[in-house]
């Protein structure tokens, strides 16, 4: 069904930045995220700007300086080939099934094809029995899974996830993680933020460490966890980067 997907990867950020309320919250972002490896994780202390980074890439907020380039396309034209699962997903005032139908309809899936695809997604995310329940009446974990199902309904080239397993019980978290892994194997690029270092170690292929709106380190996961090059990254991994204590160097030391 999917429309011929132009290749929107690699994603290239050049000097990208933006402000909120007069304060620069993302600055000097320079990086290239390619189609491989399949799972790129974004980590950093609270307030580092992880959510905003994802939204910037996804085209939900515009860059004030610099550029965001998707394989030669603007974020706006690349957006239809992406999907995002937000930290606090918003459910439409409809049943769980209708929420997925909605995503399918936006992608122009013909009516007769929708039930099968929708039911498959519901089953895959463990929501088969909740198809006709009002989405807003679901538990938070169920809503999170539904948001994932909804995002997958669009068969995205790139899937953004903003701390998708925060506040999920272990069983649900496990289910979500396995779906993400399956999807990555099937070819979807995953760009995901996480607060859970153990999870990151488990799943990430490469890691971007964000601190106070800047990319401090961007490396393959294995080498990063073994020996981070950046001081702040090191402190963070050791649990020493306390968000309420400003570090001695104004913008953090290290490379």
């Amino acid at each position, binding site marked *: 069904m999917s429309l011929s997907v132009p290749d929107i990867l690699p994603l290239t950020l050049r000097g990208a930045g933006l402000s909120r309320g007069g304060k620069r919250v993302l600055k000097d972002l320079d990086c290239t995220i390619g189609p491989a490896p399949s799972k790129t994780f974004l980590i950093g202390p609270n307030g580092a700007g992880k959510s905003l980074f994802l939204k910037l890439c996804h085209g939900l907020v515009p860059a004030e300086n610099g550029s965001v380039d998707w394989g030669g396309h603007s974020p706006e034209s690349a957006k239809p080939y992406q999907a995002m699962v937000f930290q606090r997903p918003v459910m439409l005032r409809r049943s769980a099934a209708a929420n997925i139908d909605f995503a399918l309809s936006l992608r122009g899936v013909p009516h007769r094809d929708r039930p099968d695809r929708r039911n498959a997604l519901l089953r895959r995310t463990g929501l088969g029995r909740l198809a006709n329940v009002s989405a*807003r*009446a*679901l538990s938070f974990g169920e809503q999170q899974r539904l948001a994932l199902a909804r995002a997958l309904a669009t068969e995205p080239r790139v899937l953004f996830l903003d701390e998708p397993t925060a506040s999920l019980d272990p069983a649900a978290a496990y289910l979500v993680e396995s779906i993400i892994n399956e999807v990555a194997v099937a070819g979807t690029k995953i760009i995901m933020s996480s607060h859970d270092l153990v999870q990151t170690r488990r799943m990430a292929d490469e890691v971007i460490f964000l601190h106070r709106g800047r990319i401090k380190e961007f490396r393959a996961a294995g080498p990063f966890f073994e020996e981070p090059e950046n001081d702040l990254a090191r402190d963070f991994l050791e649990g020493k980067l306390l968000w309420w204590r400003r570090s001695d160097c104004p913008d953090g030391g290290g490379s």
Partner: protein
Amino acid sequence: MVAALRLPGRGWLMSGERRPVGIVSLAVLTVLAGLILFGNGGSGRADSPVITVASTTSTQNSGLFDHILPLFKAETGITVRVVAVGTGAAIRLAKSGDADVLLVHHKPSEEAFVSEGFGEARHPVMVNDFVIVGPRDDPAGINSLGDVAAALKRIADSRSIFLSRGDESGTHKRERELWAAAGRDPEEASGTWYRKTGSGMGATLNIGAAMNGYTLADRGTWLSFGNKGDLVVLHEGDARLINEYGVILVSPDRHPHVDATPGRAFIDWLRSEQGQRAINSFSIGGERLFTAVQ
């Protein structure tokens, strides 16, 4: 946060016994919708010719039209739509061509209407008279007087409450002429003993009954008025209280769309024996309201 979104009482809705409520509501609404769409409320009969007559609220409220129009329809098959507003508004309606026939009771205005080319000709139809009503105890003491000018003089001098329609109606214009005859100008006292309601006869009488004041009213409205309170007729009979009604066809030369034929039929009927008899036969409590003049 999510749990709070479960609507309270949703469980109440889920139980099967509530289903009948929904079905009944649906059924009632469907019946209503059918009634509304197919019911013939007020759509009028389009088969018989229809004319629009601009007349006054006092004529309407007296009930005269309810009495004579069915008789006219029975004879000619013509349906008459009466739009009842103040005299000034009725004349304006006719001037704009929004009515086919004008039936009001202010001769100077009617004659101007014809001379300005808006109407074909004025024909007298009937008369009734005005009366002065007031509180039973008659604080201004006008009851015994035979002269309406003297009565008004007494009211002004005693500063008794007087309600005026103040709306440029035929009644209001007559009232102004009578004050002039009485040599008094009540306008400066407006808001004190002289109160202008800017409303129709009925509304003014309502206020008069509540305030226990004097009012100049046409006998037709007075007789059929249902809220007299403590008011009674205190002065009548003066020649200057006679109220003449004239009927005019709106000029087809001026407004070509005017339904001239049925319009003329109506006017002719009013002036005919049957019409005049119908007018004379209209009475309330045995008292005749209008006197035919042909």
